[in-house]
């Protein structure tokens, strides 16, 4: 059974939905823990939806490449896009709210990903954003 998964999607939210369904099937077939499947999909949704919504100035179709590798102890996903240079690790994210009045509605996704994923790494290479995320395979 292949331990790696490669997909190219366009910058459409419906494509992201299909990707998440395919990644779920791929990871479940390889008996990856449900918590790791959830965390990887959470990161794919957050990071790729950010690219789709904020990454491009034009209305052209763009390709976003996604690969997932299942290792002995961890699952690694790599997302590559040709959108604006954007390092999500430099985003502060919202601090835990102290009151409803003062809490901001957005900005929690990055904070959640940083807390729940074991490793997140960003690099810019050949005009592309390359984001690597990693979760433990078993909990």
């Amino acid at each position, binding site marked *: 059974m292949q331990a790696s998964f490669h997909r190219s999607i366009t910058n459409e*939210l*419906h494509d*992201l*939905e299909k990707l*998440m369904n395919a990644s779920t099937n791929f990871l479940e077939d390889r008996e990856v823990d*449900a*918590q790791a499947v*959830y965390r990887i*999909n*959470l990161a794919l*949704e*957050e990071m790729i*939806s950010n690219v789709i919504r904020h990454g491009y100035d034009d209305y052209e179709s763009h390709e976003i490449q996604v690969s997932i590798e299942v290792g002995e102890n961890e699952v690694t996903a790599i997302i590559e896009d040709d959108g604006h240079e954007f390092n999500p690790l430099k985003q502060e994210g*919202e*601090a*835990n*709210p*102290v*009151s*409803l*009045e003062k*809490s901001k*509605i*957005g900005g*929690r*996704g990055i*904070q*959640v990903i940083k*807390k*729940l994923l074991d490793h997140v790494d960003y690099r810019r290479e050949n005009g592309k954003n390359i984001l690597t995320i990693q979760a433990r395979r078993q909990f």
Partner: protein
Amino acid sequence: MELKVITADDAYTHLALIGKLDILGVGEVENKFIGYTAARKKSAVVDLSGITFMGSMGLRIFLSAAKALNLEKKKLILLNPQPLVNEVLEASGIGDVVMITSDTDAAVAAAKA
């Protein structure tokens, strides 16, 4: 994605969300959810036991509704999230300002208070 209305009386609103609360799922129920929470201006219990996935857009609609209700001195109470959904709620810090419980009686009592 489905939104079920369990109770919508003068005292409070009790809803249940069922399905995947991802970006597309949020789009399917958002208007109805706002209608039964922020627009209705009654405290609301939202049963999350049927939610199998929730991303940051889900957090966003809960926080948005809670803020709107708070302006009316009303509450949003999240009931019975599955463990993986609860993990996201905890990591977001939303539990510091929105009640999250697995006790239906306590949730309804808080909504009616």
